[in-house]
């Protein structure tokens, strides 16, 4: 996914490549600048990489710093009479100067740093020292910034010269992979993004909009609805919270999805377990159809898993009981609904190849349903 108009002559990498490059640069002991859209995960990915190694993170938000915050303060008030002034360093340097744990300096918001910070930064990055004082534990420097269209400015050339520079782009698949493994994203949001990959990030130029979708926005929304579900918030409030995080337009789309997630999936679960679902008959027709399609899609996935595990030999494998049961319940259910819905779901989600591959017609229910449904298809 690449909708950034200009690459600013930077090497483009996705978030997974960014993590790999970070590891390599940190291992090497170099400098890396990551430019990316807001909420891409530059900082959190960097933290994950640092946490995975033997290094200590020293985080500095450059947007909040003035020159003395980096170069040190003159020590006028120590009570000693002296013709010379010593400089006191901010406490963040303690880890870089004392002890022996190697540190990674994470310099955030480099695009919003005051120009006065340039000289100490150049020394910090190039010489691993400040005002001539060696920062013996400083092993690598990672800098981050945003795109000019998001209010960032290009860092000065001398600083850029001293570092590797990348344009990091979000990759929805990697984001979903991360969502799955980290457990930080609400399942309904992960499911929504799976179906709507382009809704992970909004336009680079937000125009006059105050709110738009971004990975960070979805992450914040996840935190809110996870909390809300625990506290029993009203669904309307939860939907307002999501829309407030990612913008009204996508919020509306998501709320319709959330309704499916909340209402339909429990029904699907019940059917897969062979339980009665009286509420199904009260559903609007497209909801009914979606339930049938999810059922067939899930059953198809179960059949595919058998094939994936067994390889070409899958025909000789005895179908596991859970798949057998699911097949029995799904076919029984499909036999008793509007035949058009059953037909569309089977045709669209299960497909003739799976039916043949897994000899579904050997099963009485599937045989009946398929014979009845497919006999007259032209």
């Amino acid at each position, binding site marked *: 996914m690449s909708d950034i108009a200009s690459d600013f002559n930077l090497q483009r990498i996705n978030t997974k490549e960014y993590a790999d490059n970070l590891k390599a640069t940190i291992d090497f002991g170099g400098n890396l600048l990551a430019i990316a859209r807001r909420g891409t995960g530059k900082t959190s990915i960097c933290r994950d990489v640092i946490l995975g190694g033997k290094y200590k993170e020293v985080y500095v938000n450059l947007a909040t710093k003035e020159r003395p915050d980096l170069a040190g303060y003159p020590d006028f008030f120590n009570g000693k009479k002296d013709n010379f002034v010593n400089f006191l360093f901010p406490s963040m340097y303690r880890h870089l100067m004392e002890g022996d744990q190697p540190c990674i300096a994470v310099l955030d918001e480099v695009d919003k740093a005051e120009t006065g910070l340039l000289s100490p930064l150049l020394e910090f990055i190039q010489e691993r020292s400040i005002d001539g004082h060696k920062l013996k534990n400083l092993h690598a420097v990672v800098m981050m910034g945003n795109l000019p269209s998001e209010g960032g400015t290009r860092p000065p050339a001398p600083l850029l010269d001293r570092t590797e520079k990348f344009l990091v782009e979000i990759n929805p698949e990697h984001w979903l992979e991360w969502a799955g493994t980290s457990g930080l994203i609400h399942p309904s949001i992960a499911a929504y993004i799976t179906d709507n990959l382009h809704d992970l990030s909004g336009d680079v130029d937000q125009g006059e909009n105050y709110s738009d979708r971004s990975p960070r926005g979805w992450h914040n929304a996840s935190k809110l609805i996870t909390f809300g579900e625990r506290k029993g918030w009203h669904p309307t409030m939860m939907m307002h919270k999501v829309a407030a995080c990612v913008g009204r337009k996508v919020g509306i789309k998501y709320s*319709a999805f959330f309704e499916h997630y909340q209402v339909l999936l429990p029904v699907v679960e019940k059917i897969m377990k062979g339980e009665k679902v009286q509420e199904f008959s009260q559903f609007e*027709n497209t909801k009914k159809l979606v339930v049938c399609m999810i059922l067939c899609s899930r059953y198809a996935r179960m059949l595919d898993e058998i094939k994936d595990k067994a390889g070409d030999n899958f025909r000789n494998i005895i179908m596991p009981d859970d798949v057998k049961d699911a097949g029995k319940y799904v076919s029984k259910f499909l036999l008793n609904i509007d035949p*058009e819905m059953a037909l569309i779901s089977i045709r669209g989600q299960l497909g003739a190849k799976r039916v043949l591959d897994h000899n579904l017609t050997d099963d009485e229910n599937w045989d009946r349903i398929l014979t009845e449904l497919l006999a007259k298809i032209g």
Partner: protein
Amino acid sequence: MKFHKILGKCDPQIITEAEGMLSSTFTELAMGYKTKAFGSKLGGDVFLHQLISPLKHICDARGIEFDVECEKMHAEFEAENVPVEQRDAIIAALKKQFGNKLLYTAATNGSIFYWAPQFIIKQSKIGLRLIVGHEGWHSIYMHPSRRGSRNPALWNIAVDFKVNFTLMDDLRLRDFRHPEEVFQKELGDFITLKEYGGFLKDPFNPPAKLALWNPTLSMKHTMERMANPGYKNPDDKEPKSLYFAEPQLADDMKRPENIYDYLFNQIPKCSTCGKIGVWKKPEAYKKLEKQVKEMQADMKDHSNDAKH
């Protein structure tokens, strides 16, 4: 929503209005099922929205353009007293230029939606919502690809029965007690499966609703027109919308294949050669048919004399 393409020519205002009305309907569909504050107030249908909205939408204004051209030609025919046969030939040639099949309502082939703008703008909010749903369900059920070798016109009618049943069923599930009344009020009158089956069985004795489709009546109009080229069929003035819909489809009729078979079996066949559509013509019709043929022969002779 913007039309991907405009076929034919018409007042741009009509196209803008149709786009606006379709946009509103699509927006309404994007809402949750229970969000009933917008548009038709039926509640959203995100599945239909996802299915319809991203596809290509084409504005087909060829029907309007054809009608305008026809009107101009009829004025010329009147002024120049053009004989009926010549009129028909000219109009047929014009229709051919427009591709013969003119769209006056809406249609889909499953991947593209065609909208006649003049039809869209005269709909109520509920009416348009039902029409968009109608096209969407045709697409969902993959009807175009299931026709096989069946008669296209009869197949289309069979699937209309199924789709309109689904729409009424959906209204019922959205808490409308009498969906058939809503359908009638917002879209127009409808013919039931039994009524249409009856018509196919014996079009010369149609059910009351289909009286205008009686071939004897059509033959009468043909004769009137031949006698008086300026004759206008009074029933053509305000053509009534008639939909093929069945509020209560029996379980065995819930598949368009079965509806098709039922309808097809109503059409009489020749007992010896098996040819379909062999209806027993009533005497009144035969008499009119004979008169029309004689008039046609007279006209032909007259035309040949004029040439010599």
